[in-house]
């Protein structure tokens, strides 16, 4: 501390006599930088050796990582066990996502963002040969693998006899001619230890060396800026001052470490771990591949402290990634698979009683031969090294979902159906590619692109506004084969292909079709330049008519391309980072449980469909895509489906079966209409038969015991509340004032009360024999039922007495008996059973699944609920048929009934 203070003071004092104006402006930049990165505390010093094992100080040659690091570490083993180095070379010929992919990895898999294509041997028209691939894609490759060996596994610097052209030549970008590539001159790119293990590798210099074709120097260039080596006049020179007298790198220059997020980020995506520097995102176009494809940004920075123009920034008091914020590094989850700290046996190979297996390699062995196969997940966009899928620490390897989700109803069900990421990655704040249209070329000679999560900046100088976007939820096959919804980005790409088998049209040919010299070809301009301003704006660059398609196709044909045609693809990219803590995760149930459920909300895929071509999802990913692509008004949408045969989700509050609700409503409204008509007629009839009304004699009788009344009214209240809460759960958007979660809890508690109450009542009725009240007598039942029906249809209007006299021993008429038999012994139990199964779907999913799952149980439950609603209307109405309309209800309150005295009492 003191050091920095006095440094600042002395500096200031030295300047004090000078011109004061501007002094303060000078100072901030002159303040000492934050702690100078010192040497690694652990790594010993070592000499830098060239490929022949000679000290580079003596030879002046590029450093060889294989010999330098190989002095202590088994670099041959490391390079041979690394899919980062291999990137598909070993599996060359295996399928990727498109028919023309020659491997599942970077080396051979067509990338719709970069467009360039590694040509297989034998192709007549070449795009990228191996050397050109290194120049273009080497920036995403750590070296080794295809940067060292050819497709047959031989060294690229071996004599070229019999090798295919794609290994020995390169297409001259100026002439389009195939010219030989001198591997001896360019050298090869060994696996670059520095890129990942140096505190501050110089990726820019490395990429520049690769692009220049100086492959052998690429790893040396990674050290540029460290003081170890510098480039003077295009020549790399080793700095003797950075070495000890014995020719070893001085300790201060040994800045080796475990790979940090920024090391990984050089190829994978934007990683910004320095909290002292505001993170500034600008625009959507980026070389950071994972950021460009998904919007993921790995940074501990709190968004409102960042320098990015984020919508609603003032309230974005969350970090970009909670794991970055909590000092979790990439390699903590994506660890080397034989790292003894992290290594775990596969669960199915473990003995059940063994909690820990102590037999593992020791650190010395690990450091000698650290496996450079890293624990990985199973992202949709990655097909490489499937044998290591889901080896990484997944969410549940570290987190216990049972803790901290106490607030969430049906936790197990949610965890089963949804990936943790679904709620914990609610929004991506970086911009991501939405669509790429390679059927047209912008004036810069590249595709027209669309992005998500970004809007053009309003204020001048403010930059683009980052609005954030919600990822689309797609069903993903997990390691255990289960399907869960997980967040993804969908990128749609249109492009020209030619020939048979199809190949993407090389960019060189595409450019030749569109451009004539520096500008667009006049024919192209004439066809596309709608406003005649001599240039093509973004909205003019669309193949929206057959004429335009035909023009470009013809121009491609003129390049010698066979049957050029437009193809489209939709490619999913899994999103697993930019996780946030519970506070910022999705907690609002109605995000999914509402009529506007996120699970089914349409996602815009592209604003145009070039040439009217409908794209298809690429095959080979681990997703069970169930939704459909919809073209509407020229734009393309994805409409997700969550109730496909595979996924079979029934989402309360969103899903309903139309015929169930229709039938239920008809039943309910029919009963309401019926009783309305009936009561109207009764009213009119009663006026007419008023005179006779007085003639009927009544007697008071104690009809309902205390328990019966208590049971009845509790049941009444609970059933009414159940119907209401059930309705809220069924259609939450109509009852926005209620908390969905609260209503679900209330519904469940009410159901429990109902079950207890019903069980006690069943016991009471059985034990006391009162159950007999509900059992119709078989003898003469139909006659009696008919008589009762006839009474309701005719007699009641004439003021006739009830056909059966009510008595404590026979409280119900035959119609009531059969109705209650159905209600209490069929409907109520069914409703309870379906309810319990729905509730238990999380605990006993198999039982529910056997009965058709929630998608059968839930509509069934709804249908019975409708029946109950209809019954209650009927039930209440029929209580009004006693002496006065309220007599029946009063009797259920007081227990005392007023009963018509009939001439000849019925014998029960």
């Amino acid at each position, binding site marked *: 501390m003191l050091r920095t203070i006095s440094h600042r003071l002395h500096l200031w004092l030295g300047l*004090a006599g000078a011109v004061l104006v501007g002094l303060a402006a000078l100072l901030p930049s002159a303040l000492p930088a934050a702690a100078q990165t010192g040497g690694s505390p652990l790594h010993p010093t070592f000499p830098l050796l060239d490929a022949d094992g000679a000290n580079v100080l003596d030879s002046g040659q590029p450093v060889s990582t294989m010999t330098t690091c190989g002095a202590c570490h088994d670099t041959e083993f490391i390079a041979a066990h690394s899919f980062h180095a291999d990137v598909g070379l070993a599996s060359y010929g295996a399928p990727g996502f498109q028919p023309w992919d020659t491997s599942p990895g970077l080396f051979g898999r067509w990338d719709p963002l970069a467009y360039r294509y590694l040509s297989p041997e034998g192709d007549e028209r070449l795009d990228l040969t191996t050397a050109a691939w290194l120049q273009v894609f080497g920036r995403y490759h750590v070296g080794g693998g295809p940067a060292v060996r050819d497709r047959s596994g031989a060294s690229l610097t071996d004599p070229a006899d019999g090798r295919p052209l794609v290994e020995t030549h390169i297409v001259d970008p100026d002439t389009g001619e195939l010219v030989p590539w001198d591997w001896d001159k360019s050298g090869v790119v060994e696996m670059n230890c520095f890129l990942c293990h140096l505190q501050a590798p110089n990726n820019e210099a490395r990429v520049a060396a690769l692009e220049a074709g100086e492959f052998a120097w690429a790893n040396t260039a990674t050290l540029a800026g460290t003081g170890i080596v510098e480039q003077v006049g295009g020549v790399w020179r080793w700095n003797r001052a950075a070495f000890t007298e014995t020719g070893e790198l001085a300790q201060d220059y040994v800045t080796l470490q475990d790979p940090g997020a920024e090391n990984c980020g050089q190829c994978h995506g934007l990683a910004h771990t320095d909290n002292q520097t505001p993170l500034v995102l600008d625009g959507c176009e980026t070389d950071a591949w994972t950021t460009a494809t998904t919007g993921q940004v790995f940074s501990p920075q709190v968004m409102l402290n960042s320098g990015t123009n984020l919508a609603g920034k003032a309230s974005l008091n969350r970090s970009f990634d909670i794991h970055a914020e909590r000092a979790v590094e990439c390699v903590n989850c994506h660890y080397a698979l034989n790292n003894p700290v992290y290594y775990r046996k596969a669960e199915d190979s473990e003995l059940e009683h063994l909690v820990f297996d102590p037999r593992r390699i020791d650190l010395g062995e690990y450091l000698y031969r650290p496996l450079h196969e890293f624990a990985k997940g199973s992202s949709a966009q990655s097909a490489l090294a499937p044998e290591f899928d889901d080896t990484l620490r997944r969410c549940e390897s570290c987190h216990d979902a049972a803790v901290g989700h106490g607030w969430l109803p049906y936790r197990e069900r949610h965890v089963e159906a949804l990936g943790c990421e679904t709620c914990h990655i609610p929004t991506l704040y970086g911009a991501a590619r939405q669509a790429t249209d390679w059927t047209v070329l912008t004036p810069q000679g590249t595709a027209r692109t669309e992005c998500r999560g970004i809007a053009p900046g309003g204020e001048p100088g403010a930059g683009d506004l980052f609005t954030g976007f919600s990822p689309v939820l797609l069903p993903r096959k997990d390691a255990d084969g289960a399907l869960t919804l997980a967040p993804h980005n969908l990128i749609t790409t249109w492009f020209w292909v030619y020939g048979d088998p199809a190949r993407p049209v090389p960019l060189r040919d595409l450019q030749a079709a569109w451009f004539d010299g520096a500008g667009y070809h006049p024919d192209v301009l004439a066809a596309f330049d709608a406003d005649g301003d001599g240039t093509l704006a973004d909205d003019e660059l669309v193949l929206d008519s057959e004429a335009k398609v035909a023009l470009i196709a013809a121009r491609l044909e003129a390049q010698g391309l066979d049957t050029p045609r437009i193809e489209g693809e939709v490619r999913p990219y899994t999103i697993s980072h930019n996780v946030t803590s519970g506070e910022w995760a999705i907690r609002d149930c109605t995000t999914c449980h509402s009529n506007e459920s996120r699970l089914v909300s349409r996602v815009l895929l592209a604003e145009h469909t070039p040439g009217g071509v409908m794209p298809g999802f690429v095959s080979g990913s681990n997703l069970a895509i169930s939704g459909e692509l919809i073209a509407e008004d020229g734009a393309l949408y994805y409409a997700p489906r969550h109730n496909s045969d595979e996924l079979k989700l029934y989402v309360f509050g969103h899903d309903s079966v139309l015929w169930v609700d229709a039938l239920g409503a008809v039943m309910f409204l029919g009963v309401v209409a019926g009783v309305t008509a009936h009561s109207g007629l009764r009213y009119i009839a009663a006026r007419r038969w008023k005179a006779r009304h007085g003639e009927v004699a009544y007697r008071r009788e104690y009809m309902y015991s205390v328990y019966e009344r*208590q049971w009845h009214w509790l049941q009444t209240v609970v059933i009414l509340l159940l119907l209401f809460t059930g309705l809220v759960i069924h259609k939450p958007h109509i009852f926005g004032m209620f908390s969905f979660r609260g209503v679900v809890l209330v519904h469940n508690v009410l159901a429990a009360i109902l079950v207890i109450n019903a069980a006690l009542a069943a016991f009471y009725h059985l034990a006391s024999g009162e159950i007999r009240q509900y059992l119709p007598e078989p003898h003469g039942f139909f006659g009696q039922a008919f008589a009762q029906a006839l009474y309701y249809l005719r007699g009641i209007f004439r003021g006739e007495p009830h056909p059966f006299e009510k008595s404590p021993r026979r409280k119900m008429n035959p119609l009531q008996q059969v109705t209650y038999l159905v209600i209490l012994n069929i409907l109520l139990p069914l409703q309870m059973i379906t309810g319990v199964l729905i509730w238990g779907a999380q605990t006993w999913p198999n039982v529910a699944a056997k009965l058709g799952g929630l998608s059968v149980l839930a509509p069934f439950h709804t249908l019975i609920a409708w029946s109950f609603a209809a019954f209650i209307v009927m039930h209440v109405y029929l209580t009004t048929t006693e002496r006065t309309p309220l007599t029946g209800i009063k009797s259920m309150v007081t227990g005392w009934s007023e009963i018509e005295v009939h001439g000849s009492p019925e014998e029960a």
Partner: protein
Amino acid sequence: MNNPNNDQTSETNWLREFKYIWVIGLVATALIVIVPVVLAVRPEPAPADDPWAGVPKAKPATDHSALLKGPFETGSDVTLACLNCHADAAFEVMQTNHWTWQAPPVEVEWRAEPVSTGKANVLNNFCIGIQSNWTGCTRCHAGYGWDGPDFFATATAEQVDCLVCHDQSGQYVKASAGMPAEGVDLVLAAQSVGRPTRINCGSCHFNGGGGDAVKHGDLDETLYFPDEQLDVHMGRYDFQCVDCHRTDDHNIAGRSISVSVDNANQIACTDCHSATPHADTRVNAHTDTVACQTCHIPAAARREPTKMVWDWSTAGQDWPEDEHKYLKIKGSFIYEGNIVPSYDWYAGTAKRYLLGDPIDPSGVTKINDPIGDITDPQAKIWPFKIHTARQIYDAVNNYLLVPKTVGEGGYWTMFDWDLAAQLGSEQTGLDYSGEYGFTETVMYWPITHMVAPAEQALRCTDCHSANGRLDWGALGYPGDPMQWGGRDTTAVASK
């Protein structure tokens, strides 16, 4: 239902027992309802601590407008009027540091004899010292008429200034030697008295060092009307200074190592908050080692830049003036805003430079070196503003000097360092050799105000990362304690 032979008898029995059965039925119903509800609804766990329990409930102020009619000619007239009812008030004030500007002697580890310090007898690296400069400095004394060395020999209760703390009229201003400024309406001021607000305290404490935001780095005039982002206590909850700086008999709690050498009557976050208030035990594990302020005040001087460097040696030149860069009377400054504090161990006291202590003029003199290191279980990592200066010292005797700046013969009028040193030394009693120079000094200002809302607190990677705020090596750690382990805290646990 029982079914006796005679229905009438049965009904009579039922009626006789009716009430009893009714109650049973109700209880049964209630149980059927309550049991599932209780099982389903679990109460929220009670919060670990209740900070509001520590906040005093202020009594509403008495309206004095009918009680104090005036007229008042002088400040002392007002004080006399106050003493009519609050007879002990002035005598209480006269026991406190706000009046004496010098604390009673205390034993300290770093000196054999007890030490008595205060504004009256120390020097700092801002305006340096009050001796010989009384009239300028005592503007902020809670009294009237301190204009020379003999003030306390004759001072009486009526010279206590009640209004500077209690005035709520907003127009009471003090001038030279602490006298009410010309034009102040004393009657209005007297009638307005109430509980001290941030404005009363701030009129002096926000302007320490000769102006707004100069001295502390965490106290400036933005705290008169702060928003919650600046200070969560004063902004979100409208805390007044005296809500935390609790006061008994006019003795206001709170000490600063800029003048104090002991830590008695101190206040702390834990007066209201639990020592382990975080939901995350990993965060709570920090509180033995890291002061609350370290994380909860992510930056100091967040709204107004504060003075970081003061070079007296360039004073006296006819350079262009800018109160934040150069003044002829004071020399050159550097102000910085939104500063990331410096962090160091601190157990609550400092080793203070006392008048006459020898210095090494070629080195840096620490005027108040915070005491504590990684081995001191009482010490925690604290945030500091570090103020650096070049100030005058005696080039023969090798000690810092208090120059006379204010008033007749002072540097601010004569621009003569030699004369200023001579006149100042006459008052401090230090021998002045006649040769002076300028030497570098630093002062540590613990950052403790401007507590940000919890959401703004530092997070893991602010310290635990490659480019974190803390220099682990300088703090005495072998490396990031997250990876290499923290200090041995057994001593703390057993304290």
